[in-house]
């Protein structure tokens, strides 16, 4: 009943997601050195932190003149969703022993989305590992390409790299704005950021927005399905509808 790996829909989707996502490691690498990190520091983030949103958050705070503490805090808060993803993967795949540590490291938006988009348990497993490990390898490779290129570019502003950072954050946010509630939260947090900027040191406005977002999550925000905003930043199954996701092609 199990198909070979070559014909596996989970592995196929995982591979295409890995290529698409891995490639944009170039933009992370270039923006990271433009924000003042070294090539080694940039690579450490891709190898060890390995979560696009958190990595961009870290360098985004540093680029804006924020302290490393604020940068680490923003990265940590953006990583909280990975705990929720980890729980879902743990239920689906039930990795044991050392596999758990490996699975945890490659638990990101894309590997979760690839896995949960499959219905057959074997395909869920293949999708998760192919997407997770594939992205890990390519993301790190292209981070290095980007950081070396960025290092050679010189003045980041002349190349519009500060504009590239803005575009990257908007692109990470965009797929999560599918409901009106999500849009309202984004608007409230954007406003809180603008109001806070003149009054607190750089980097801190982002943490002010985090408090607003957490308060909204705790007290309000009853409409919409649970897990709003937990949509991955890439949709591995763009051509299939929700109800029939077993054979994307």
């Amino acid at each position, binding site marked *: 009943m199990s198909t070979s790996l070559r014909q596996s829909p989970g592995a196929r989707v995982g591979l295409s997601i890995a290529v698409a996502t891995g490639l944009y490691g170039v933009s992370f690498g270039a923006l990271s050195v433009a924000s003042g990190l070294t090539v080694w520091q940039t690579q450490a983030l891709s190898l060890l932190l390995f979560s696009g949103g958190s990595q961009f958050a870290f360098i985004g705070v540093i680029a804006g003149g924020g302290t490393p503490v604020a940068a680490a805090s923003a990265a940590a808060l953006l990583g909280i969703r990975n705990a929720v993803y980890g*729980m879902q993967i743990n239920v689906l795949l039930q990795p044991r022993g050392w596999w758990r540590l490996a699975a945890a490291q490659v638990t990101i938006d894309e590997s979760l989305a690839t896995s949960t988009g499959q219905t057959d348990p074997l395909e869920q497993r293949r999708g998760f590992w192919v997407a997770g490990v594939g992205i890990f390898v390519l993301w790190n490779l292209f981070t290095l390409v980007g950081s070396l290129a960025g290092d050679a570019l010189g003045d980041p502003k002349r190349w519009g790299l500060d504009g590239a950072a803005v575009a990257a954050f908007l692109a*990470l946010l965009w797929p*999560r704005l599918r409901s009106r509630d999500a849009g309202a939260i984004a608007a409230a947090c954007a406003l809180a950021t603008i109001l806070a900027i003149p009054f607190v040191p750089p980097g801190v406005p982002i943490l002010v927005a985090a408090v607003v977002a957490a308060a909204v999550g705790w007290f309000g925000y009853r409409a919409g399905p*649970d897990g709003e905003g937990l949509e991955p930043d890439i949709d591995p199954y763009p051509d299939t509808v929700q109800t029939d996701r077993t054979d994307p092609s």
Partner: protein
Amino acid sequence: MTLWFWIVVACVVGFLTKLLGYLVPKKWLANPRVARIAGTLTIGLLASLTVANSVATGQQLVLDARLGALVAAAVALWLKAPFLVVVIVGAAAAAGLRLLGLP
């Protein structure tokens, strides 16, 4: 050195957060409120980072070429451009507007 230290802290915390999902009892994180806050935090932080990187220069609000990059990126996203294209469009818009004399 301080930067290295906080990079390592961010990496350790990031990994432990991922691992937490595999170790804690299912019902903790299955709590809808936890999932909801993880979701609102993600949206709120990304919105905040977008705005801060668009208009903040230190503690000042500044309107410059970055705002053009924001608009150009929004148009690209609306046209369903892939991530990397959106980033390049943002860079091109900011660089182009500076060539035209904008700060």
